[in-house]
C-alpha cells in the first residue's frame, strides 16, 4: 500500500468497519431467530405438558398460568412407562455390553496385525456400515422365528449388536493404532497371556472411545422404532418408542397426554447426555460414518 492512498483507505476501512458492525447485529438477530425456531417446538411441548387440560383447550398457544403433574401421570400410565423404561434400559444395557466387548476384542488383532487376512476381515466389517436395516429386516424376521427368538430381548439385542459392531470396530481400530505397544510388550515378557494383556492393559486405555461409543449406541437404540415394532410383540415387551407408537395416536390423544409422553421419552437420554457431556459431541460426530 503506497503512502498516497493511505488516507483514502483509512476512510474505506471505516466504512467497512461500520458495515461489519451492522452486519454483525443483523447476524445476531438472525441467530436468535434460528435458535428460537430450533428450541420452540421442544419448549412448546414442555410447557404444554405441565398445563392443565382445560387451560390448553381454552388457549392452545398460551404460557402456563397454573402447573399440574396430572398430565405426566396420565401419560405415564398410558405408555406403560415403568415397564417400557425397564425394557428399554435392559435392551440398551445388553447391546452396549455386547457391542463394546466383542467390538474392542475384534479390533485388537485387526489393528495390531498388518496381514492381508486382517485387512480383508476389517473390510468385511466395514461393509456393514452401508447396509440399511430395510434389506435385513424380512430375512431377520424369518431367522428369528426359526430360532424362536421372536419377541425376545435376546433377539433384539443380537440384531442391534450386529448392526453396531461395524461402527464400534471402525472407531476402536483407529484408536488402538495410536496406543503405543511398549506396555503390551513388557507385559508379554513378564509372561502375561493375550487375554490378560487385552483386558488389563489395552481395554482401560480405550476408555474415552468406549464412552463416546456408549453415547452413540444409546442414541441409536433408545430412539429406534423399527426393530421393536417388528421384533417385540405385546405391550409388556415393548420399548418406550414402540409402546408410545402403539398406545398414543397423535390424532386422537390429547396434546396434554402426548407432550408429557415426549418428555418421558427424552428425559432419560438428556440426563445421560448431560452426565457424559464432554463425550457427546464426539459421539454425535462419530456417527459420521453410519
Amino acid at each position, binding site marked *: 500500500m503506497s503512502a498516497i492512498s493511505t488516507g483514502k*483507505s483509512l476512510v474505506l476501512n471505516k466504512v467497512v468497519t461500520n458495515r461489519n458492525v451492522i*452486519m*454483525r447485529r443483523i447476524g445476531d438477530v*438472525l441467530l436468535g431467530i*434460528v*435458535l428460537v425456531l*430450533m428450541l420452540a417446538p*421442544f419448549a412448546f*411441548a414442555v410447557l404444554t405438558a405441565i398445563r392443565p387440560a382445560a387451560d390448553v383447550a381454552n388457549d*392452545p*398457544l398460551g404460557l402456563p398460568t397454573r402447573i399440574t403433574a396430572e398430565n405426566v401421570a396420565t401419560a405415564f400410565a398410558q405408555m406403560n412407562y415403568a415397564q417400557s423404561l425397564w425394557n428399554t434400559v435392559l435392551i440398551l444395557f445388553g447391546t452396549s455390553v455386547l457391542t463394546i466387548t*466383542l*467390538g474392542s*476384542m*475384534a479390533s*485388537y488383532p*485387526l489393528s495390531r*496385525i498388518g496381514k492381508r487376512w*486382517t485387512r480383508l*476381515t476389517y473390510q*468385511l*466389517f466395514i461393509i*456393514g456400515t452401508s*447396509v*440399511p436395516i*430395510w434389506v*435385513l429386516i*424380512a*430375512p431377520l*424376521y*424369518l*431367522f428369528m422365528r426359526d430360532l424362536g427368538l421372536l419377541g425376545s430381548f435376546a433377539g433384539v439385542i*443380537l*440384531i442391534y449388536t*450386529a*448392526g453396531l*459392531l*461395524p461402527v464400534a*470396530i471402525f472407531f476402536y481400530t483407529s484408536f488402538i493404532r495410536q496406543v503405543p505397544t511398549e506396555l*503390551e*510388550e513388557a507385559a*508379554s515378557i513378564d509372561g502375561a497371556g*493375550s487375554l490378560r*494383556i487385552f483386558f488389563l492393559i489395552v481395554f482401560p486405555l480405550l476408555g474415552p472411545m468406549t464412552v463416546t461409543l456408549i453415547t452413540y449406541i444409546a442414541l441409536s437404540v433408545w*430412539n429406534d422404532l*423399527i426393530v421393536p415394532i417388528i421384533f417385540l410383540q405385546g405391550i409388556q415387551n415393548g420399548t418406550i418408542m414402540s409402546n*408410545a407408537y402403539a398406545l398414543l395416536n*397423535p390424532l386422537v390423544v390429547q396434546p396434554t397426554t*402426548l*407432550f408429557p*409422553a415426549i418428555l418421558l*421419552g*427424552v428425559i432419560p437420554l438428556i440426563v445421560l447426555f448431560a452426565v457424559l*457431556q464432554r463425550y*457427546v*459431541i464426539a459421539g*454425535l*460426530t462419530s*456417527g*459420521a460414518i453410519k
Partner: protein
Amino acid sequence: MITKRPLVAIGFLLPALTAYGLFTLYPLVRGLWLSLTDSSGGPRSNFIGLENYRRLIFDPDVHSATLITIQYAVIVVVLQNLFGLLLARALFERPHARRVIGTLVLLPTLVAPLMSSFIFSYLLAPDGALNRMLALIGLPGLQHVWYGDPTTALASIAAVQIWMYTGYTATIFLAGYLAIPRELLEAGRIDGATSWQQFRLIEWPLLAPSLTVCVTLSLIGSLRVFEFPFVLTNGGPAGSTMTLTLLIFNSTFHAASKFAYGIAIAFALLVLVVVSAAIATVVLRAREARI
C-alpha cells in the same frame, strides 16, 4: 504378543465375526436369495429368477416412490446443510456464545424421530400453532392443511428431519471451522476482505472435508427416511409421501403375497443408497483434491 499367535488372534475375532455373520451377513445373503423367489414368508417358495426385479422396473408404484424419495432427499440435503453451515458460521464468529448455544442446538437431535413427529403433527395441524401464528401476524393466506395437502405434505415432513438434524450438521461444520488455521483468517481480515469474500475464498474451500461428511450423511439419512412419513402421513395424501421405505414396509409386513417383492424393493433401495453415497463421495472428494 498377539502378533505372533494367529490362533489367539482368531479367538479374539471369533465372537464378533459370529454375531456379525449370523445377524448381518447371513440375512443379507438370505434376503438376496428370497428376492429371487415367490416366498410369502412361509416354508414353501419357488425360485423365479429375476422376475421380482423385472416387475419392479415396470411398477408405477416403485417409480413414484423412488421419485418421492429422491425429491425428499434433495429438499433435506440442500436445506439441512445450508442452515447447518449458516449456524456453524454464526457460532464460529461468536466464541462466547459457542459453548452454550452449540450444546442447545443439539437438543432436537436427542428427541426421537417418533417423538419429533408427534410434536410436528400437533404444531402443523389444521388448527395447530403454525396456522394460528400465521393468522396472528396477518398472513392467513399462507395457512395450509400441511400434512393433508399433497403439495405441502412432503416438504412438511422434510421440515421435521431438518429441524432434528440442523444442529448436528452445524456441529460437524463447526468442527471444520475450528480446524481452519487462524493465520489464514487473520490474513484475509488484514487484507480487507469483506465477510462474503472471506467466506467464499477462504472458509468455503477449507470446509470441503466437512461438506463431504455432512452431505453424504444427510443423503444416506434422508434416502432411508421412515419414521416421519410413517407417523405423520403413512404415505398419504394421495400417495404424495409414499417413500421407498414405506413401500417396503407395507409390502413385506402387510401383504404376504408381496413378501419377496418387498425384499427386492429393499435391494433396489440399497443400490440407490450405495450408488448415490458413492457418487457424492467421489464428486466431493475430487472437489477437495482440486481445492
